[in-house]
């Protein structure tokens, strides 16, 4: 069963039309650009800046209760 499914996909990819190949190339380039180049290297997250989850939780609670210091720091 597993073998049949595997060969189904292998056969499908082997017999792709030119347009099918072109679409797969576009998909792969898109995935690399969006998820590796832009997301992994260029989009900062608070998780990276504030590594301790307890501190991070307190930052969010402060923002909701109106005692945020992070926002003020960025505004300066």
């Amino acid at each position, binding site marked *: 069963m597993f073998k049949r499914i595997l060969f*189904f*996909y292998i*056969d*499908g990819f082997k017999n792709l039309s030119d*347009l*099918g190949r*072109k*679409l*797969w190339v*576009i*998909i792969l380039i*898109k*995935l690399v*650009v*969006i*998820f590796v*180049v*832009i*997301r992994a290297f*260029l*989009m*900062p*997250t*608070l*998780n990276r*800046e504030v590594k301790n989850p307890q501190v991070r*939780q307190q930052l*969010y*609670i402060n*923002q*909701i*209760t*109106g*005692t*945020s210091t*992070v*926002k003020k*720091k*960025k*505004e300066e």
Partner: protein
Amino acid sequence: MDHMSMIEWARAQFAMTALFHFFFVPFTLGMSFIVAFFETIYVKTGKQEWKNITQFWQLIFAINFALGLSTGIIHEFEFGTNWSTYSWMVGDLFGAPLAVEGIIAFFMEATFAAISFFGWKRVSKGVHLASSWLLGIGSNLSALWILIANGFMQHPSNAFENFNIDNSRLEMTNFWQLIAQPVAQVKFLHVVSAGYTLASIFVLGISAFYLLRGKHVEFAKKSAAVAAAFGLISSIFLAVIGDDHAYEVTNTQPTKIAAAEGLYVGKKGAPIVAVGWPKDLKAADVQTNDQAWAFKIEIPHLLSILGKHGVNAYVPGLKDLIDGNKKYGIWPLSKLAEVGQEARTDLKAYHEAKAAGDTAAMQKAKADFYSVVWSDPKLGLKLRKCDLIGYGFFKGKNPDLIHPPVLPVFISFHTMVALGFWFILLFIWAWIAVVKGSFANSTLLQKLAVLSVPLPWIGTSFGWMTAEIGRQPWTVFGVLPTAESATPIALANVQATFFMFLTAFVILGIAELKILFTVVKHGPKGAH
């Protein structure tokens, strides 16, 4: 100031991603079923021409499917990078339907797309047909989960039933309550029927294009017949469910419908503006509704009928929602903000008491936070301080910040509705022509069908603009303001990634259109 600019850039980035993603989504929703219809006819009749028709439209579907693939996931990491306070506060609730979409619907789509695209010579006719239908169902189920998540943002009913005071997050306690929200159900039906209408217009328009050029005539006539039938049913259903949607919005997001209709001063028997141009004034500067318009033509009572199901029912205007209206039990914003701020203070007191280990103070703060500020025993309704916490963020702020801008919401809503009516007319005309056998000879209808091809994309984009700009200034209506939802990260980061996504989307968009035009120009294999 920088923080506000960052929020605007983050909103622009999210809007751009959403509009780009939605370039592909409705087409997938509709085309998956249209392809399944064609294949069903092929399996029933066994005729090669129907197989050719199915394979051509499946190729168009595959191009859209491949290029649109994973563009929606960008939203999910934008929630984390740009909107982390939002993700912190509601992520547990909001994330659940997104996770279900990923696990069930996405895998369903991936599995049956593979059989549908690769399996023509490898599985039986029946299995292939079942796969095509299941691909359509999987695509539509994806939309269901996304719209359940969006429905929660539009109307988070009983949100604070799920609030964990210790970490200040809304947590999942009742999954079925989340699924069963009426706003989400109506929104789902509205969006999928818009997708069916869009795909039907595409098929009708491309078929009309072939007829105008005298090419692939039999193929075009058969494709147009299916598109006209499916499009007529879909566009009528779209309007009917759109009416239900308007009713839900009027009763759950009164600022959105007031902005969409430029209604500043609430009234009984409120009209709908059929044609007009609002001046987009501040509510404080408006004394009468007429003052707010450069010109307008109204249909009397229609907003009351559609929005409240009563000819003379009262619909509140923006001024009522800011200044309050005692007669209709509407609290002024100042009072909502006062109580909301008290809730924030109670929450702060709870966390301070917790840090100090003062159990008695914690219990008092918690009791205050959940205390009832209004109730109606007859209707079994109650309002607690915590339910208004979102309004606390507006204390002391410009009251006009509490409603969305009138002009963009009015334009997007009314353009969407006008296009919806045009699609019904077009499909009625096309269906009559198909039944009479005159579609292939009606040059005017064919030209209009071709010209209408881009219109549903404009309509669906305006629909989302109405929904999302109209929800402002909230990310979660009444619970969390947009300005408080963002991550405090540097403006330059958001600007840089905005332009990178823009570049990626422009290139992908050009690739999609170029490949689609090439395939359409080449036409169906074996059709004459």
